[in-house]
């Protein structure tokens, strides 16, 4: 490839923030038609690099160029005009408006002062066709799933005919099956000659989507390598800066104890006669594709949803379905899939976010005891290695992994011994993921029951003692101990009826 193919580059780029060097003498280039994965822990410098290339930040020294033009002094609009389009993690769509309206948000085609609806629809159809996606442009965006919304977001960026498309964790809120769609779209876009920078924490999808990967650590580029030849362990080691440990070598220890929580014949919208046993002292994985009823299983078990029929027993006793408060009192705890929407109270401190699950435990005769709050929070912050400046720091300012650990800490504070974790590692960097796995293991060793729902089969296969595979709202298979193999779990989850 010749140098004229280079769409965007950074030469000896350095960027400092107060107290931290975000980029340190970085050289980076992407070419036409290339999909480049950008890998690294949170805080490694990925976001800064992206911001520099999109004109949102400027280098302290060195230079950034797009199509040979230096970005120094240019704003995001100027850089967009040079052909850089960025799709950020947070969606920026108006759910009540149609796909077509969203695609041209703020720049709706007009004729003689009025909206030209016909042209807008035609252009919208063309934009969707360009990325090879079949979505009804007249349906409201809110009616699409997360994947559909993400695709609309990408279509909008591609509609600007960019030369460089930057995708910042486009799949962090998607289930594995939906990721496929996004990957196909990204490949289509790249084939049209667009350079793509793709940030993600998911190794499996990076293998499918990217040609090359650049690993960033502590503001430096560790290496740029072809993804097909590098092993996952190698890459993870580069990201962490440590030698890879053989995670798989750990012995699995399915528990022989009687189930603490069990369900028989649960039926609801998404559940179709589900049986499940949760035992103390082990990590039970729940695998299954999107729509197989993973989240619904947890919600029914913890009493958030009331199944139409079926029986739930806690420590051998039948419980009234749908009695959420009672289930929490009796030792259940759930961390929700959508951390931001259902997990954290962003403006409150980490300490209060933790003790909120049991305020009585930190009260004396009805009055909150500040010292007790501080002690309880600090103990859990240390135990789970939650990185926060102070216990009182608003949790909304923490990274996803640390937020997740705090939400988990909540149930440790409440003393729950049945922990239902819905996608606890989604949108979490590799280091925090590993810490969360370790915590699950410690909790299981401690005699608690841990239920781990994930759409990433790899991590289930790595971490769990037993795995229940769901399909169509039923438990179709159960693997325990050495029966757990990645391919087997995967095959069971996606098998046809």
């Amino acid at each position: 490839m010749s140098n004229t193919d280079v769409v965007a580059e950074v030469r000896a780029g350095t960027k400092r923030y107060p107290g931290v060097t975000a980029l340190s003498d970085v050289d980076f280039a992407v070419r036409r038609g290339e999909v480049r994965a950008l890998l690294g822990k949170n805080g490694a410098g990925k976001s800064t690099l992206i911001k520099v290339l999109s004109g949102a930040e400027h280098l302290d020294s060195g230079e950034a160029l797009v199509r040979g033009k230096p970005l120094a002094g240019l704003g995001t609009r100027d850089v967009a005009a040079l052909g850089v389009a960025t799709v950020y993690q947070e969606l920026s769509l108006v759910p009540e408006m149609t796909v077509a309206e969203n695609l041209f948000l703020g720049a709706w085609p007009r004729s003689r002062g009025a909206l030209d609806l016909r042209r807008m629809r035609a252009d919208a159809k063309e934009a969707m066709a360009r990325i090879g996606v079949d979505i009804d442009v007249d349906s409201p965006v809110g009616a699409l799933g997360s994947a559909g919304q993400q695709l609309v977001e990408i279509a909008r960026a591609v509609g600007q005919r960019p030369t460089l498309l930057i995708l910042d964790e486009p799949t962090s809120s998607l289930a594995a099956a939906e990721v496929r769609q996004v990957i196909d779209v990204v490949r289509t876009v790249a084939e049209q000659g667009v350079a793509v920078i793709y940030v993600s924490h998911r190794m499996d999808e990076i293998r499918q989507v990217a040609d090359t990967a650049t690993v960033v650590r502590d503001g430096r580029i560790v290496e740029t390598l072809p993804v097909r030849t590098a092993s996952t362990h190698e890459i993870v080691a580069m990201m962490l800066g440590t030698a890879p440990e053989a995670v798989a070598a750990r012995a699995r220890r399915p528990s022989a104890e009687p189930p603490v929580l069990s369900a028989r014949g649960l039926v609801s919208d998404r559940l179709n006669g589900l049986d499940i046993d949760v035992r103390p002292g082990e990590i039970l994985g729940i695998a299954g594709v999107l729509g197989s009823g993973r989240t619904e299983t947890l919600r029914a078990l913890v009493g958030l949803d009331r199944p139409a029929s079926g029986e739930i027993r806690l420590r051998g006793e039948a419980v009234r379905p749908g009695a959420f408060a009672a289930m929490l009192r009796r030792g259940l705890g759930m961390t929700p899939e959508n951390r931001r929407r259902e997990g954290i109270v962003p403006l409150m401190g980490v300490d209060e976010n933790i003790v909120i699950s049991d305020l009585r435990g930190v009260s004396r005769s009805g009055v909150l005891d500040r010292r007790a709050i501080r002690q309880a929070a600090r103990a859990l912050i240390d135990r789970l290695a939650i990185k926060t400046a102070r216990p009182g720091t608003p949790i909304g300012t923490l990274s996803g992994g640390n937020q997740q650990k705090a939400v988990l800490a909540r149930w440790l504070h409440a003393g729950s011994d049945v922990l239902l974790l819905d996608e606890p590692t989604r949108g979490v960097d590799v280091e925090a993921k590993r810490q969360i796995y370790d915590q699950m293991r410690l909790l299981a060793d401690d005699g608690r029951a841990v239920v781990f729902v994930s759409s990433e089969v790899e991590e289930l296969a790595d971490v769990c003692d037993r795995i229940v595979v769901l399909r169509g709202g039923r438990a179709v298979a159960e693997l325990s101990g050495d029966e757990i193999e990645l391919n087997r779990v995967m095959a069971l989850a996606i098998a046809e009826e």
Partner: protein
Amino acid sequence: MSTTTPTGPPVAKADARGGRLGRNTQRLNEIGLIGAIVVLFVVLSATAPGFLSVTNQLAILRDAATIGVVAWAMTLVIVAGEIDISIGPAVAFSSVLLAKATGEWHIPFALAVLVCLAVGLLLGAGAGYLRARWGIPSFVATLGLWSALRGLAQYMTDGLPVPLEANGLLDVLAGSILGIPTPAIVMAVLFVVFLFVANRTAYGRSVFAVGGNAEAARLAGINVSRIRVILFATTGLLAAVSGLLLAARLGSGNGGASVGLEFDVIAAVVIGGTSLAGGKGSLLGTLLGVAFITVIGNGLVLLGVNAFFQDVVRGVIIVGAVLINVLLSKRNGARAS
């Protein structure tokens, strides 16, 4: 770039009151309000005849109680992301109820007071129930109360004041204790109670959690519906208290009284830095907001500004104060990120 290397246990100098994003903004806002109130005092003592007199200062305290008594409860309602606009009619209705109960229905005074408080509490709880159980927006639920209670109060009295027979308790409520107007004392006691409830009880912190993220609060085991019912029951109760004080002051139950009071109360809370979006706010801010609004009202009267035009001035000042607050938090937010 938020990640730092883990270096042992977190810094020990922690604020156990729970960090709130924009606490600095809140501080700034409070300092700004204190500054504004000081400036008002200086300007008014120079320009408004009799402003600094003891009589007038006590009158300011008495006026402040009209807003303040309900404003404490309103602060928590707004922190929880809700709103209660039924205050003015609820106050008027409570005063009418007291006059009718003692005068026409011959209920003993002390019992009539309890009835008024109970009715206020139940009406508020009803609005809260509509919000909590059926998801009716609190603006609409309390708009219904706003209209119905005003109508009921006027209907019961044919739009005329209903005189109250004088008695000892009424005199105390209307008068002073140790030289301080009784309503101001009620306001002060309630302030301390609410300060305590907001910061030091599970209920108070749950209100902040519900306002910050109701779904997260629910999943953490907080009974969100219960919190919402209690919130509106509290504003209902305090509106009734306010109505009793009003009746004592006027010596009658008056169905047409307290027009627009709800907006003074909401304005005081918002000027005090409590976010209408929920999740953050402070009672100290509301206290300053109440002082700010009351002093302006008092000054405008003393300066002899036309009564109609007073509303114009107040409107401009209220929006201006909130605008400054918003600009402050924007600047602060930009610096933080």
